[in-house]
Every structure is written in C-alpha cells, then in structure tokens.
C-alpha cells in the first residue's frame, strides 16, 4: 500500500504542471484550482502511504515482534 501511495504522488505533480501549461496567466482561478487539486492528489497519496506504514506495523506485531 505504501508503494501505491508513492506512485499516486507523481500524478498530483503532473496535474500541477498541467495547470500552468494549459491555463494562460489571466485565468488565475482555474490555474490555482488545478494546482490545489494536484496537491490534493499528493495528500491522498501520502495518506495511503501512511496507511501502508501502519499496516506494516500491525504485521510486525502479528509476528510477535515488539517494536
């Protein structure tokens, strides 16, 4: 799951780059909205990566290790 989260994060970056490529400077609101959406996708990827970390911790405990 951690890898899935990390793979999602570049998608958010490309969304942000698409914003500055597709929308010319005067359409500031649309640009900003796209960039914020890109950051939102990255935040989702980060949440998934953290969930993966917590699942890995649970697996360690299930194996009887105390760390």
């Amino acid at each position, binding site marked *: 799951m951690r890898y899935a989260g990390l793979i999602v994060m570049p998608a958010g970056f490309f969304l*942000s780059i698409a914003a500055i490529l597709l929308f010319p400077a005067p359409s500031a609101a649309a640009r900003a909205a796209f960039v914020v959406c890109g950051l939102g996708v990255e935040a989702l990827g980060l949440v998934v990566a953290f969930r993966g970390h917590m699942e890995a911790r649970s697996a360690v405990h299930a194996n009887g290790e105390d760390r």
Partner: protein
Amino acid sequence: MTSPTPVLSDAACGVCLGLLILAPLAIAGVALINTGLGRSRSAAQALLGNLAIVAVTSIVFALVGATFSGAIGGAGHSFQLAGKPWNWLGAGPFFLGGLSAAPLQPQLALLFEFLAVAFAALIPWGSGADRWRLTAGCAAAAVLAAVVFPLLAHWVWDGGWLAQLGVNFSAGSGFVDPGGAATIHILGGLSALTVIWIAGPRKGKFPKEGLSTALPGHNAVYVLFGCLVALVGWLAFNVAGAILWIHAPFSTLPSTALGTLLSASGALAATFTVTRIRFGKPDASLCANGWLAGLVASSGCAALITPVQALAVGIVAGVATPLLVELFELAVSIDDPSGAISVHAAGGILGLVAAGIFAGQPGQLLAQLVGIATLLGVVLPLVYLLFWLLNRMTPFRVDQDGERIGMDLHELGGGAYPEFVIHRDDSYR
C-alpha cells in the same frame, strides 16, 4: 566553470562570504540537537555520524553534485514543452574545474550549496537515531549529495525550471526559496520520513499493547544549547541567501535577520504555551522543536516579508509543531526521535506558503504551491526509491544485538560516557 554576469558588488560579496563562514553554526546546532535527542548509549555514534555526513556530502558534491547543480546563467540541459524551455539539469564542469577563475558570485553560490547539502543530509540522521547504521547513513548522504540535492538546487537556485516559472508562465517571480526551506529543510524532512519508513521504529517504541513508549532524549542541555547555536547559523544562512538568491539590497538585510529572530521567538512562545496547556508544564524538547520550526519557516519567508508577519508565521509554526509531533507518533506510528518531519518538512512548507501569501506579487503563491507539489510529487518518491535500493545493498537498520547494547559499543567499540551507568532497555518500560 561557466559563470553568469556578476550582479553583486564586491561589498555584497564580502558580506556574503563573512556570513557563509558563520553558517556552519546552524549545522553544529542541529548536530547537537540530534545527539541530545538520542539515547546516551548512542551519543558518540550520533555525533560522529553528523561529522561523517558533512565530510561525505562535501566530497561527493565536489566530485559529482556540483556538476549537476550548475550555476545561474551557466550551461544546462533543457527541453521544449508548450513552446517554453524547461531547464532541468545543470551541466557544469566536473571536479570543480575552473572554479578559481570564476567570478566571486558563483563561487559564493557554490559555497552556499556545499553548506546546504551537508545541512540537508544531516536532518534524516537525527530521525534514524539509535538504529541507523553509520555506513548506511553515509551512503544515504552520498546519494542525496550526488543526485537529489543537485537536481533540486538547480531547479530552485541555479536558473532551473522552478526559478523560471515567473519568466515563462507569469507566476510571480518564479519559485523563491532564499534561505533553503525547500532545498535544505523539506528535502531533509522528506528524507527523514523515508528513513523512518524503511528502518522502522526503535525496539520497544511501539509495544504490542498499549500506547507508544516515551524514549526521552538523553541530554536536554545539548538540545537547548544547540538551539542557540543554530540561531547564529540560521541568521547567516537567511541573510546570505537573501543576498545571493534574490539580490536583496543592504537596506533590507536587518529586516531579514529580525524576521528570523522573531519567527523563532514566536514559535518558542507558542510551543511553550501549547505544551503548558496540554501537559501542565512546558516540555523542553518540544520547545526546542518549536524554536527550530520557527527558524525553518523563516528560511522560506524572512527575506520576503515584514518582521511582524514573520512573527505571525512563527506563532503558527509553534502551535502546529507539538501537535504534529504527537499526531505522527500516536496516530500513524512514526518513530521520529528528532521530530524532523514536523520541524523541517512541515515548517518548510509553512514558510514557503507564507512567502507566497505575504509577498504581495500576483501569481507568487501559485509558484510556491507548484514548488511544494514538486517536492511532494517528485522528490519524495525519488528519495524513497533511491533509499529503498540502497537499503538492499547496505541495510539501514542495525541488528538486534546492536540495538540492545547501543550504537556506540556496537559500531565504535566504546561509549560516549564511559564513566556513567548506561540504562538498559528495561529501564524505560
């Protein structure tokens, strides 16, 4: 060495050189903090690791990294997209060739980058305390100095595509990071996160049942004195960065220094208050983290905003830091002894956003957000991939025996405090 047309006067270059000679005090301060927040049985290994990382990054950056970071106006690799050039990699000479013949300004920029890469690589070392092997830490520092930092430094400081967002896409002045909030602190904080993910927590930190165990730092005096030492270095970094990267006039430099001090002060006052309300007494190590978070936030914005605005930014950093430290430890099982993710990654992001909000230039906030998106969407996965591969070749985590007896005895054969009684694991239960 290809060099840009100098824009700084000799006086400005002289001031900048003087400041850069003081800047390593920030590194010394963080090294003391990293050591104090670890356990006594790993103190010598921790401080030796800090020294070794500075040495490794300096050598690797001189041999490889400086080539790829390039210089402002120097040669670079570009491609065309949407009719605009995207300068993504520097193409300087290898092994610092031609450095002595270059003008003073690019030489100073290079010196700044040498100190910045050492600082960035030091940050994850504190997060891997008590379990990260010295050789693996040095190897990770070498990877950061050879690959990741040069890319980021080129994009942000040396005329790369992030710096050109203003010229090419009318996004303010492009991505601006005068004190290294992105290139040093967010890079360091995200690297710390990957180290924690890969190495896992310290033994006994998260028992099978119950809450996480508190593993307090062994020397609060190191930690708090480190904060004071770091202030001097931070003032130097922020003011030198303002001269070098945004060509700030002399008349604005006292304001930058004042903003740095006020941001740290506001953060300390806020963390002191928050921890006193939450725990009944102020927490020394969290207050140190708050102070550092204020300094980190100032790296992104002190040169661009007024001192009073910097104070407000510091207060926000000081409130957020203890809450984030608690959130990462209790909610998502992150064992980060130095609090690098909350202090350096989150503090750096706050500083960059504040620069976009308060700079008052149309499109500046957008440029800052694109920079942050790049750090999270490109730099974090890249660092994870490189560290994951490195962990396959030289395992990050020490074996169980090493963790039990402490890193000092296991890796160095002797402790930092041979006359003191060292606590066993059971003492912390």
